[in-house]
C-alpha cells in the first residue's frame, strides 16, 4: 500500500511544471502540426492518469502513441482498459537496464519518470535505482534517436529519511561509461541524509550527464513539494537537445 496519496501532488505538478514543458516540446518537435502525435512513455497509475488526459487535451500525444508503465500486475490490467499501450509488472528502473527489447525500442519524445506513481516504499536503495534509471534512459534514447533532435524528460521522486549512498550511484554510473570522465559528487563517500543535499545530488547528476553524453538542456526547471517534515517530492522537467 502507498504511504502517501500522490494524486493531488501530481495534479499540482502538471499545472505548475509539466504542462508548460509538454507544450514547449510539442512546439520544438512538431511546431506546425496541429496534432503533434509525439510518442510518450509515462510511469503512471490507473487512479490518476491526469498527465495522459493533459497530453490528449493539448493534442501532444494520442492514446495510441502513449505507453503507460506500472510496476504492479493489477494496476497494469486496469491501465489496459484506457486505450494506451501498457508495459510493466516490473520496476521500470530495473527493466530499463535488463530488458533489451525496451532499451532497443526507446523512441519516445516524452519520458515521464514519475516514480511517485509506482507505490514508492521507504526502503534503502530505491532513490539510487531511480536516479540511475535516468542515465539508462539517456543511453537508450540516444541509441534510438532517428531524426528527432529533442526530448522532454520529467523525473519525479520521493525524498525521505532513507540515506542516499552516493558510492552506489557513482560505481554503477561509471560502469555504464567507463571511458568517459568519472562521475563524482561533492559528497562522494558518506551517506547523504539532508533532503537539500539529496536534491543537490540530483542536480549534480544532471550536470554530469550533460557533459558525459554531450547534451544540451534547452530548459531545466524543478519543483519541491513538502509532504511532511521529513518527506518531499522533487520533480525536474528538462528539454534536451541531442
Amino acid at each position, binding site marked *: *500500500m502507498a504511504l502517501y496519496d500522490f494524486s493531488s501532488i501530481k495534479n499540482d505538478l502538471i499545472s505548475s511544471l509539466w504542462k508548460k514543458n509538454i507544450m514547449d516540446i510539442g512546439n520544438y518537435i512538431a511546431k506546425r502540426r496541429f496534432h503533434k502525435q509525439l510518442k510518450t512513455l509515462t510511469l503512471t497509475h490507473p487512479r490518476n492518469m491526469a498527465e*495522459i488526459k493533459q497530453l*490528449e487535451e493539448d493534442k501532444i500525444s494520442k*492514446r495510441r502513441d502513449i505507453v503507460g508503465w506500472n510496476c*504492479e*500486475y*493489477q*494496476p*497494469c*490490467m*486496469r491501465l*489496459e*482498459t*484506457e*486505450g*494506451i*499501450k501498457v*508495459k*510493466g*509488472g516490473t520496476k521500470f528502473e530495473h527493466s530499463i537496464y535488463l530488458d533489451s527489447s525496451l532499451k532497443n525500442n526507446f523512441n519516445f519524445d516524452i519520458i515521464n519518470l514519475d516514480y511517485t506513481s509506482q507505490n514508492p516504499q521507504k526502503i534503502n536503495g530505491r532513490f539510487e535505482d531511480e536516479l540511475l534509471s535516468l542515465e539508462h534512459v539517456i543511453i537508450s534514447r540516444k541509441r534510438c534517436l532517428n531524426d528527432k533532435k529533442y526530448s522532454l524528460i520529467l523525473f519525479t521522486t520521493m525524498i525521505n529519511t532513507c540515506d542516499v549512498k552516493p558510492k552506489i550511484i557513482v560505481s554503477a554510473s561509471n560502469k555504464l561509461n567507463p571511458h568517459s570522465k568519472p562521475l563524482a559528487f561533492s559528497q562522494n563517500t558518506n551517506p547523504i541524509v539532508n533532503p537539500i543535499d539529496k536534491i543537490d545530488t540530483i542536480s549534480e547528476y544532471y550536470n554530469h550527464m550533460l557533459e558525459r553524453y554531450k547534451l544540451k538542456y534547452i530548459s531545466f526547471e524543478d519543483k519541491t513539494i513538502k509532504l511532511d517534515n521529513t518527506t518531499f517530492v522533487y520533480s525536474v522537467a528538462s528539454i534536451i537537445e541531442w
Partner: protein
Amino acid sequence: MSSSIPIERGTIPFRVQGDVVSHLSIGLYRNFSRSIKELISNAHDAKANEIRIGLHFDERKIVIRDDGDGMDKNDLARLLNIGETTQISDTINELGRKRIGTFGIGVLSVFPYSETIKVITKKKKQKLAYEVTINSESFFKDIKFDIYDAEAEYIAYESDLDIDEGETIIVLNNVAEHIIKDLEDKRGGFSSIEDYDGLTKFKWYLSQYCPIRFNDKQKKLKKFFNDDDINKIRVYVDGEELFRNVPENVEIIEKKEMKFGDVILKYVIMSPMKSIRPKESRGFQVRLRDVAIGLPRDFDVIKLSSFVLGKLNWLCGEVHILEGLEEHLMVDRDNFFYVDEIYAIEEYFRKRLIFWENKIQNMAKNSKELYEIINNFNEPQIVIKEFKSSGIIKIDKEQLRIPKKSLKRRKYQKLQPTLDIFINTLTKNNMQVEIKTEKTISTKSLEITKNKITIYADHPDFKDYLQYGDNEYIVEYSSWDINKIPSICKLSKNEIIFNTQHPIFDSDLNLDLIKNLSLGFHVILKNEKNKSILLKEIENLLTSTFT
C-alpha cells in the same frame, strides 16, 4: 507480465443447464458489439458505476473492466453455470436500476470471438481477487456452440484494491482476426452504419444498445426520461465516454406517456428536419429496462400502409417501456413475442409516423414556396435567417431540392403578385400577417415578432420586376378579353402588364419563362414596323405549341 503471487489455487465447475444449448446459435450474437453489450448489462446488474473497454489491435486483445460488486468463488461458479436463469424482478436497487439479465447466458456472448477468456474479479468487502481462465475456443466449433461440462482452473491472490471496492476484469485473448480487422477497418462512408469505419461502428452500436446516459446537450430528453446521470452506468472505449445516440440537431416534435393494456410506456418523436444518417438511426428505438430491443424500427409502416412516405427518413424516436412486456421478450432480446399489446403499440406508432410524415411534407412544400419568394428579395439571407430563428422556416434550403431553373411549371407556381403569394403562404403556416403601407419606403421589408409578421408592402422586395438588358420593368397583373386584345402582355415605358386570362398561362411551361420571353419579344420588336403582326405570330406559336 505475470500475475500477483497466488494464495490459493483450484478449479471451478463450468456447467450447462438443460436445454439452453438448443437456444444457442451463432445467430444469437451476430454482431460483436452485441456480445460486448451483454457484458455491459452484467456490469449494470452488478451495480457498476463505469465499465472501461481497452482495444489492443496489435496484441489481438480486448480488456474490459467494471467497478461493480465483483465476485467471489461462489459467484464465479454461478457465472459459469450457463443457463441458470434469474427470475424477472421489478425490484429497483439502490442505484435506481432494475435488473437486465435473466437468461443466464450473457457470459457466453464473447465465447465465439476469442481463444481464451480470463476473468479477474474481487468482491466488495472481501480481500481476495480470483483469476480464472476459460478456454473459450474449445466450446465453439463449426460456428456452433458446443458447450459441455468442464472444470476451469483458478488462482486467488490478495487484491491491491481497498476492501470496500469491487471489480471484474475480462480479458479476451487472441481475439478472432476478422473482429480485429473489422475494428481496424478505415472506410469512410456515412449513409449506413455498415459504411462507417470499424471503431466508429463499434461505438455506435454500443451507444445504441446500452443503458447509458444522454449527452448533457440533450436536456429535454434527459428531463423527459428521468435520465439521472448519477445512477447510469458510464461506458468508456479507449478512454472516451459513450453517450446514447441522438441524431444531430433533432427537435422533439411529440412526447407522451401511454398505456396499452398492462404496458406503460413513454415516447418521443424527433426530427432534425433533414434526412437522418446513418439510416439505422431512423425509426423508433424501443427500450426495455433501458436496454435497446433490436435496432430502431418503423413497424413496417411502408409495407402496411398504401402511402408513399418520402419524409419517413426524417423521423426518429425513443420508446421506453416502463412497465410490462418483460415476460414476452425473446431470448435474442431483439424482439417480443407477438401479443395483443405489441400489436396495439405497433399500430399506434405506425399512425404517428404517417401523421408526422404528412406534416413534414407540408412543411417542406410551404418552406419551398417561401424560399422561392425570398430568393428574389434584395437581401434574402437576412430574411431567411430571421425566418429560421423565429421558427417559421425549419428546413434548410439544401434539404428541399429547389430546382434552379426549369422549363416545366412547378406545381405550386401561381400567376399572382409576389406579395399575395407570400401572404397566402404565411397564413397557411398559421402566421398572423399585418400589412402596412408607408409613405416613405421602410428599410426593412418585414418584421417578425412572436407569432406575427408585419409586411411593409411598399418595400421593393414585394414589387415584382423583370429585367431585360439594362432596363427594369415593374410587373402588374390584369385580365382582359383575348378576343379583343390577343396579346399575352402590354408593355409601356417601364411597366409590363400580363393578362392572367391568356391560355398560355394554363400550360405546363414555367411561368417565369413565359413572362421573360414575352418581355423579351416585346422589347426586341419594339421598333419593328410590323411589330403587332410579328408579336401575334410568335405568341400564337407559343400558345399552340405548349397548350
